[in-house]
């Protein structure tokens, strides 16, 4: 980015028009030799030295360009690059996302619950560039997809590749929380948060959600639980990752609200119910505002000064004018 250290000097540019006028167009200027070159209001001697005049025009243009360069040089041009450096460590956030087949329910337009969740996570992460964010998904099993990282780009890329049912058919809420907690235990962050998005009951995994919540609570992790989906019968459509078949049908949606509430309570978090896309977005905003940490940011600026080049250029331009007029054409005044 180009900035001027003393932009006030650029006001000198406004003097340019009067000075050009007074030195080239004003008829009362000095340095003119009075010679009668015409009959008054009648025929006048008109020299045909067009080439000379063209050269002189270029010469004068070069001179004024040089003056402009000097003015810019006085104004102190510098090319500044700014870089944000976060001095404080942010909050560790790990999303625990359900990828069981029920997440394919089509009650979150325009697509299903899973895509809607991915979308809100993406928005959330983009807005938090100084908080390390991780991702754990679970179905029958649970896996750490992304450890808490500040690499937002990498996170988003990875998020895109997520597919339903890669970890089997089931809902191992407890396992998901446990894995998330496990990867946060070495974190030095002052605050650690798990955001759990699920739509089902815990029906798989070796660890029951309650004990997982206890572990998390013991490590000082807050868990925000989001129950996603409408209650009742909803259409469902998904692709079986093993057979590649598209399975459609209807599904009686329900989830264990009490469990989610309990997890939230034990870990000092909060439970939210998200029956629609808008609600889900709203919830994420709420969490975002709850989990804001004070950012201490240092802006590192590196600047390169450009006056040296400008001054040299100005010297060349002005000297060119001087050379043409005084040396080549031997100007008298």
């Amino acid at each position, binding site marked *: 980015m180009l900035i001027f250290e003393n932009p006030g000097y650029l006001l000198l540019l406004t003097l340019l028009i009067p000075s050009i006028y007074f030195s080239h167009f004003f008829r009362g200027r000095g340095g003119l*030799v009075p010679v009668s070159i015409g009959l008054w209001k009648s025929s006048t001697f008109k020299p045909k030295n067009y080439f000379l005049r063209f050269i002189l025009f270029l010469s004068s243009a070069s001179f004024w360009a040089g003056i402009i360069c000097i003015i810019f040089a006085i104004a102190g041009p510098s090319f500044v690059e700014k870089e944000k450096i976060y001095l404080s460590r942010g909050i560790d956030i790990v999303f625990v996302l359900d990828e069981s087949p029920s997440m394919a329910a089509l009650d979150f337009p325009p697509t299903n619950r899973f895509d809607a969740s991915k979308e809100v996570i993406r928005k959330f992460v983009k807005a938090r560039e100084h908080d390390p964010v991780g991702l754990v998904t679970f179905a029958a099993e649970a896996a750490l997809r992304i450890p808490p990282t500040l690499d937002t780009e990498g996170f988003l890329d990875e998020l895109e590749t997520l597919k339903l049912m890669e970890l089997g058919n089931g809902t191992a809420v407890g396992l998901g929380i446990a894995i998330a907690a496990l990867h946060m235990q070495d974190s030095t962050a002052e605050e650690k948060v798990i955001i759990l998005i699920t739509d089902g009951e815990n029906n798989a995994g070796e660890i029951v959600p309650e004990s997982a919540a206890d572990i998390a609570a013991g490590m000082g992790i807050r868990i925000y639980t989001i129950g996603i989906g409408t209650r009742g019968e909803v259409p469902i459509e998904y692709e079986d990752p093993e057979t590649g078949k598209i399975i459609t049908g209807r599904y009686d949606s329900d989830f264990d609200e009490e469990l989610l509430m309990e997890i939230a309570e034990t870990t000092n978090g909060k439970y939210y119910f998200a029956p629609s896309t808008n609600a889900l977005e709203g919830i994420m905003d709420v969490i975002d505002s709850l989990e804001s940490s004070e950012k201490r940011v240092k802006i590192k600026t590196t600047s390169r000064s450009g006056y040296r080049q400008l001054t040299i250029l100005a010297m060349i331009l002005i000297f060119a004018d001087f050379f043409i007029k005084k040396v080549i054409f*031997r100007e*008298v005044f």
Partner: protein
Amino acid sequence: MDSLQLLSRIRNIPLVSARLVEGFLSGNYRSVFKGPGLEFDEVREYSTGDDVRSIDWNVTSRMGSPYVKTFREEREMALLLMIDVSASLQTGSGTYRKADTAAIISALLAHSAVHNNDRVGAVFFSDRIEKWVPPMKGRNHLMRLVQDMASIEPKGRGSDLSCAIACVEQSMKRRGICILVSDFRIPPAYRQMSMLARKHDLIAVKITDPADRKVPETGLMEVQDPESGMIIKSFGFSPGYRKDYEDFWLADHIFWQRECRRRGIDSMVIDTEDDPARALLSFFRRRKGK
């Protein structure tokens, strides 16, 4: 050259003008002048000794006693100097500007006229009439005129000859000698000049300067016309440019000479480098020989 120096120079003029008178206003030049000679003055009652031939019989019979016509001899003649004071005369490459030369010449002629007991007047013109001095006799008048010549500060920059000629035509009822002192950097007014030449004796004196004919061999200059304010780039080292300039003014000069000759206007050219007195003397000597 300031007006003080000019004045001191003009002070020396009477010496020269005495010689100039011989050539200029007396003798041969006079005889060219075809005035009535005698001018009717008045009628008065006859007194003893009057020439009987001058008795006006008409008046005598009307009044019942003899009356005579008296005549006044028109000896003196009016010399009118038309002096161009436009800005183009304020230039000059040497010691004298064209305006200085014009002033010296005018002063010489005025002195000669007064020396010969003639009336002398002047009209100073630029693009307007700057000053009008009616023709009168006497040394005081002459001194005033010379003072004006040396110190006039024109208000206009251009030069309009036809306006000056109109002024002269209106104010000079009787035949006289008109001397037009100018550098002729003026819009052509040859028609008006020949009209004036028909009524009066017109002598055109053209003041020239070397810089008017030639570009000095110098480097780049910005040259401004003092009258129009037009600015051109002048590069004296360029032979093409010098030639263009010389040709332009040579053509103009030749045209001027031809027009003057064609219209019966006496013309003389004085350069700022010439001695004005000498130039005038030789001019009138040449005229005498005609």
